[in-house]
């Protein structure tokens, strides 16, 4: 784990579940999960944000294009929507979501609209 800037830590995939469990046991709430695909870097960045009172912490996971991320929806139930959204809009594979909506969270015709076709 490495601090990029204030309240923002870079973690790798092996650390993720440990971090999530720590947060859960300390009663932190899941603020959001944000997926982005900066064109310059050409990889996914998944940011998990947690808050406890006024404390705030973000954990960033760097994921290559054809890699999967583990789901945290079995620890935090509210992650279901964020993870389905990630898969539907960005095409990032999330393993083993508790309720997998199979790209039916948003009723849209386009597949992975947030990512340009040549990037895929």
């Amino acid at each position, binding site marked *: 784990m490495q601090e990029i800037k204030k*309240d*923002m830590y870079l973690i790798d995939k092996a650390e993720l579940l440990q971090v999530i469990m720590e947060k859960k046991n300390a*009663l*932190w*709430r*899941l*603020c*959001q999960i*944000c997926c*982005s*695909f*900066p*064109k*310059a870097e050409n990889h996914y960045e998944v*940011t998990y*944000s947690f*808050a406890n*009172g*006024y404390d*705030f912490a*973000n954990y960033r996971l760097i994921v290559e294009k054809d890699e999967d991320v583990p789901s945290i929806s079995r620890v*935090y*139930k*509210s992650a*279901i*929507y964020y993870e389905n959204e990630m898969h539907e*809009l960005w095409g990032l594979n999330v393993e083993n979501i508790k309720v997998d*909506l199979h790209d*039916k*969270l*948003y*009723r*849209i015709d386009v597949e992975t*609209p*947030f990512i*340009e076709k040549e990037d895929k």
Partner: protein
Amino acid sequence: MGKRSIVPYGPQHPVLPEPIHLDLVLEDEKVLAAIPSIGFIHRGLESLTSKKDFNEMVYVAERICGICSFMHGMGYCMAVEDIMNVEVPRRADYLRTIWAEMSRLHSHLLWLGLLADGFGFESLFMHSWRLRENILDMFEASTGGRVIFSVNTIGGVLKDMPNDMLKEFVKKLDEMEKEIRETTSIFLNDYTVKSRLVDVGILTGEDAIRRGAVGPMMRASGINVDMRKNGYAAYNDIDFDVITSNNCDSYARCEVRIGEIFQSIDIIRQCVAKIPDTEINTKVTGMPNGESIIRVEQPRGEAFYHVRANGTKFLDRFRVRTPTFANIPALTQTLQGCQYGDVPLLVLTIDPCISCTER
């Protein structure tokens, strides 16, 4: 054991101004589980960053929602200002605070009306909306828009409110406060209202955290968190207490929101008394490069803005997590074990804003 059945609820339903669909698993009249599905009005506003430059995105951000439009614009501007290291003039901060609190006032009055409509108290609904109309008129007089204000810009605000206009607004709010107190006392004391709200839809504090609830939903479960205490805009100069309630039911949520109405009026008064005379915007040059995360307390709860810029005029990522998105898992929790007749009411108590949710 009674007979189990699944009842589809929504997307078109008299109490729902916007489409959300719930599949309710019923055992007789009792709801065992609720499976929400959203996605009827996804507009893909976040992906517009690749087509609109970061200045135009202010207007896109405002159109995420029709009720908290001002705060969406403000949150986005604050995030970009944070990236570009722009110091906003103090008067602009105060003006933003005043408009934000007026938005909260009108949103909560709207919600009270919808709640009254939800349990069938039509005349109370009309009174709440009559009061809200005055605030919309104030918005129109000060910004030119009744719903979408378009006064935010990166580096401050575009329109000033002259001091005598502010004084006049405070005078109007003083008059309104009396009327609001009368109307809200009906919500808090009326026997029929209480019988619909008290002990309906319990969400304990621990559940609220586990499900990631935000805003009044969370504060009604006794958790003392209000993003305004982080001191963005002019809130660090303002003296206010976070309103919480320990009852965890629908009545507590109503109580918290009513408390926030009077708190907002008080904050506006403090702002008008303290507002300094400075410029209202600073000239911003250059392109943003970097990233920023801003959390803003909207009427419905904490909204989350994540802006990532790459030094060109198009942003890499603009992420908005709206409060309703975070409250939907909490909604399914409150629906478990409730009576079928209470479902519309419970959907309303999270103050749903579905177009916000799907962006």
